[in-house]
């Protein structure tokens, strides 16, 4: 168990550092910050001066080391656009995205688990086939398009829900639904196939031979085994949802982390971009490790090892 944990942590650290180097190189290659700051008419000397002040004239490995060393001490630098510390920008934007992500994954589970179980129990019936078709359609639908459709129906035509912002909690409903929509087919299909396998398993036949109730057979014996991969995948899906929040926050004009990233990429504000990338990759790795951990804890065969 300990070895297992150490291995996932090491793997996570490797992934994080790779992502950081890549984002660092990409942000340096995508444009010259000094030119952006100085303006298009600035002289070469002025640009060189700014480059020197910001330390951009040093070799890239030195710059990266410098950035990483500061980041390791919690200093993520300052935003050029907002004239604010990057850390405080993140502190104000993160909770919005976090809430959105949690609502979305909870919504996805609440919808996908019962439907997946029902489809498995009704395997091969019209219900099962219909659910499978809807899931496939859902997966093919781009989230920005769904978001716009929902804004038009529920926001503009029906006036039921706000179409932008999260000033009231109702503002979260449409964007969480759009985010959940991406995860629902994945969780649903995994639940269904896991439950189909479990219901055919010998231990379910044993449970029936013991005269247990239908509820105990389905919810205790079958679901417990089918749930292991579902839990793991849900954690990873939460990562995808957070990543997908970039598009959804822009469509719904919600000022979360995704919106911040989109804005700073557009304006070349790369200290912010890099900090957001760092945070997202940390969260993603953290979720992956957590998913491994939770599935290990759920599976006695791994837990004991």
């Amino acid at each position, binding site marked *: 168990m300990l070895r297992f944990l150490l291995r996932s942590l090491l793997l996570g650290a490797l992934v994080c550092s790779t992502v950081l180097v890549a984002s660092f190189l990409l942000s340096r290659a995508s444009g010259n910050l000094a030119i952006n700051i100085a303006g298009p008419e600035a002289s070469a000397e002025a640009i060189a001066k700014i480059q020197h002040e910001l330390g951009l004239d040093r070799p890239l490995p030195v710059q990266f080391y410098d950035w990483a060393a500061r980041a390791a001490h919690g200093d993520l630098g300052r935003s050029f656009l907002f004239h604010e510390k990057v850390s405080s920008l993140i502190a104000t934007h993160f909770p919005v995205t976090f809430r959105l992500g949690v609502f979305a994954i909870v919504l996805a589970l609440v919808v996908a688990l019962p439907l997946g179980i029902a489809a498995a129990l009704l395997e091969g019936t019209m219900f099962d086939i219909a659910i499978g078709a809807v899931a496939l359609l859902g997966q093919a639908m781009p989230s920005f398009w769904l978001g716009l459709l929902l804004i038009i129906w529920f926001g503009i035509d029906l006036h039921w829900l706000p179409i932008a912002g999260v000033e009231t909690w109702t503002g979260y409903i449409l964007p969480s639904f759009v985010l959940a929509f991406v995860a629902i087919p994945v969780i649903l299909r995994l639940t269904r196939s896991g439950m189909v396998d479990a219901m055919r398993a010998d231990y379910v036949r044993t449970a029936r031979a*013991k005269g247990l109730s239908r509820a105990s057979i389905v919810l205790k014996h079958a679901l417990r085994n089918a749930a292991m991969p579902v839990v793991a995948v849900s954690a990873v899906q939460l990562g995808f949802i957070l990543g997908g929040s970039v598009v959804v926050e822009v469509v719904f004009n919600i000022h979360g982390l995704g919106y911040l990233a989109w804005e700073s990429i557009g304006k070349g504000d790369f200290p912010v971009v890099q900090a957001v990338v760092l945070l997202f990759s940390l969260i993603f790795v953290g979720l992956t490790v957590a998913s491994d951990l939770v599935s290990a804890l759920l599976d006695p065969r791994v837990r004991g090892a």
Partner: protein
Amino acid sequence: MSPVLEVRDLRVRFGAMAAVRGIDLAIERGQTHCLVGESGCGKSVSALAVMRLLPRGAKLEAGAIRFADEDIARLPERAMRRLRGDRMAMIFQEPMTSLNPAYTIGSQMTEVLRTHRGMGRAAAVERAEAMLARVGVSAPGMRLGQYPHQLSGGLRQRVMIATALLCEPDLLVADEPTTALDVTVQVGILKLLADLKRDLGLAMLLITHDLGVVARIADVVSVMYAGEIVEHAPAGQLFAEPLHPYTRGLLRAIPVPGKVKRGEKLATIPGIVPRTEAGFRGCAFRDRCGFATYECAEPIAARVEGAHRWRCRLEAGWREAA
């Protein structure tokens, strides 16, 4: 005394395929009834039909299953659930996969008592522990907290047996309970089953394709072929005087210590088992039988002589000719 289980003319189909074609079985208290036959002859399907646990796609076409003074062949699922695990119990071939990997032995045992007896946790644990000790599991208290993967195959099968017997059922159905186990472990499990049957007065339906197992444990034997029982007799009588050519062939296919010479092949029955669709007539063994005549394609009536019952139209002299 009326039998614990009495099956009459049981028929099960998978689509057009007739898997069980009208079998009769009766098992009394304290009796081990062995159902033998080649792979695919319908042993498991018959057993599952008795438990009313047939898989999807199987249709219980006809027949009466008398158990606990009622015909359970048409009993609603809710009522069957009350019988299963309580009055009738079943154990399976694969002790590895028949236990749920996600729950402890204790949890999987006590749920039976909680369901059927409404026992509290402490009482159920105590009873489960005693039952594990009864079936020869060492350190039963510790086993209750273990998971199936921590147990050996033989121990798992003992756990399955203990679980099946928790509510002191009248009938135990055991589908190849030793097939997946090592030979030395097999002997222990068979001995345990024989002891339990005697001590608890169980009626036991034991399925096997191993005549060695039959010789060791059976009181009564039914030989199954292509969905039918072709011969039925008390064990001693069946081994001494098999009346159906198929039984005879099966007996020849068992190695007898000291009689088989090294390098000599055991007798096998040539040919394959026919697929029996609905409406199949005559003796299903006729294509593989050295004594078959054109009359064997006609329906074969069951013949009875004392406790011996068989389905073959050959006269008693056929064996001398063999």
